[in-house]
């Protein structure tokens, strides 16, 4: 898929431009440059591999935010069938940043809760840049309860810069909406598989992120605070975001090491935005495999494991205390 290049991709672009020149030169003067073209193509492949295998945390954040990156509804269209979107929280409104509904994943009937960003201004206004209001989190809970009632597992697709920081959000109690989801998802009596497909922005992401299995795409990130905001607080300046991104340990590999996520789903070379179908095929396969395993586990055992999985997160020192001391 054609997409605007990111800064660190410029060397590849430069090589591609030179390759193009070489080819046109060859055509115009009818000289055989085949071996040169071949070595140039090799060099491009090698450069790409070099760049994409050594992405910094900040570069991955940029890929995760890429405007052409597949969004939740792109995955829903490709990984799932028979999608029926269900609207509204039955109290206040329908949050377009949080599409929820029924869908089939292969043979499995599911409910899907997701966060959706927009690709252009018009779409972003509609989707509020993927920042949900309280009614979004409450719609997600309503649909999860529906899943619990009809024994349909929950598939959560996470992609948000964060819950929306606005006046209406506070008036309708965004903090409570997220907190209630955390509590209720911990004891929801159907399997939950959550995947961070792009941006995992803090509490807004976690608000649909309690699950038996937490997956993350190779170039997605999941962070307690955005690198920019962290930079503004700790360096008193937003321009240290790349260092903040590094310090926060927000990449898929870092999160695997910390035990925050259970599995990394690989992306097409250069990022999911380069091949939506392949990205979706990878995700679909990972979801089916994880869901199958979760469905084979008795629900009480699954709930115990779900609690234990989050319960053990955290790192601290504790002196040994003698019994009865």
């Amino acid at each position, binding site marked *: 898929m054609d997409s605007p290049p990111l800064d660190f991709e410029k060397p590849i672009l430069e090589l591609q431009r030179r390759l193009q020149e070489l080819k046109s030169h060859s055509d115009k003067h009818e000289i055989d440059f085949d071996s040169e073209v071949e070595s140039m193509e090799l060099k491009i492949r090698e450069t790409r591999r070099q760049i994409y295998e050594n992405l910094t945390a900040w570069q991955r954040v940029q890929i995760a935010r890429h405007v052409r990156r597949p969004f939740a509804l792109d995955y829903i269209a490709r990984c799932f069938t028979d999608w029926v979107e269900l609207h509204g929280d039955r109290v206040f409104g329908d949050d377009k940043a949080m599409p929820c509904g029924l869908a089939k994943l292969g043979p499995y009937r599911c409910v899907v809760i997701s966060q959706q960003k927009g690709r252009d201004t018009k779409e972003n206004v509609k989707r509020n840049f993927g920042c949900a209001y309280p009614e979004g989190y409450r719609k997600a809970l309503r649909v999860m309860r529906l899943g619990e009632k009809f024994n349909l597992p929950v598939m959560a697709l996470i992609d948000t810069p964060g819950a929306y920081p606005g006046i209406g959000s506070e008036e309708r109690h965004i903090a409570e909406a997220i907190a209630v989801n955390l509590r209720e998802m911990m004891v929801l009596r159907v399997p939950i598989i959550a995947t961070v497909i792009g941006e995992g922005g803090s509490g807004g992401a976690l608000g649909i992120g309690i699950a038996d299995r937490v997956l993350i795409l190779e170039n997605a990130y999941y962070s307690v605070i955005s690198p920019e905001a962290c930079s503004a607080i700790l360096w008193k300046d937003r321009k240290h975001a790349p260092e903040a991104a590094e310090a926060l340990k927000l990449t898929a590999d870092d999160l695997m090491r910390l035990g925050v996520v259970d599995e990394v789903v690989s992306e097409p070379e250069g990022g999911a935005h380069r091949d939506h179908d392949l990205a979706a095929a990878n995700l679909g396969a990972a979801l089916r495999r994880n869901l199958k395993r979760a469905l084979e586990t008795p629900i009480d055992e699954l709930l115990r494991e779900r609690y234990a999985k989050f319960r053990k997160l955290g*790192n601290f020192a504790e002196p040994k205390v003698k019994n009865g001391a």
Partner: protein
Amino acid sequence: MAIFKKPALKTESRKKREMPPGLWQKCDGCGEVVHEIELVENDRVCPRCDYHFTQTAKERIAKLCDPDSFVELDAGLTSIDTLKFQGMASYKDRLRKYQDKTGLIDAVLSGHALIEGYKVAIAVMDFSFLAATMGSVVGERITRVIEYGTAHGAAVVIVAASGGARMYEGMLSLMQMAKTSGALALHAEKRLPFISVLTNPTTAGVMASFSSLGDVIIAEPRAMVGFAGPRVIKETTHQDLPERFQTAEFLEEHGLIDLIVHRKQLRMQLAQLLAYFSSTR
């Protein structure tokens, strides 16, 4: 010989201003200067305008719990710099600085106690320690005290104050929201009461987890309570914020909390609520 001698110039008034710091406090409520002794005697409430100053966790526990009934649990839990976080200052340096300044190991005290004879599992956050941000230690101690309540059939009382998650611990700090909320789910399954008390300020990750999950939610008067910071909201929305936005009074008006209780009445209010919900005294 002059009868009246011009008195020598004295600089007494200037000397007065050089009092040891901390002896006088300017009240954020009315702007008046209040003497420390007066504040201590008045539970750190402004005697003129009732503004509630920040209280330490120790002070709160002493005022809320029956005398000598508080038994601290998990006192030795200490934060670790898992991420080796380097910003303008390292996390390690920050921790050491606040440990020296406050005499605390981290931002919460937890344990079990009696309130008017009712057994409670109680945690009190201390804003003076790194803005009472929630890292692994805060999350673990709060989770353990909730689990203590669940195991012993006790009510849980958490007095919160917090700037949110502790970013120096990255995603491990965010996960404390999940841990604490999950522990409350199991506590609730046993039909045990949880009373959440919000003090100035309670925000972000703490507000978006256990603090919003009280069976009854109480706030201190004029406490700043919210999810996003007012500056962030202003920058995002380019709107003027409503009057008293994100105050306890604003939350009560919008139906988001049960009660606003003056600090001096808090202990009796907790006891009254516990009498409705608890069978153990």
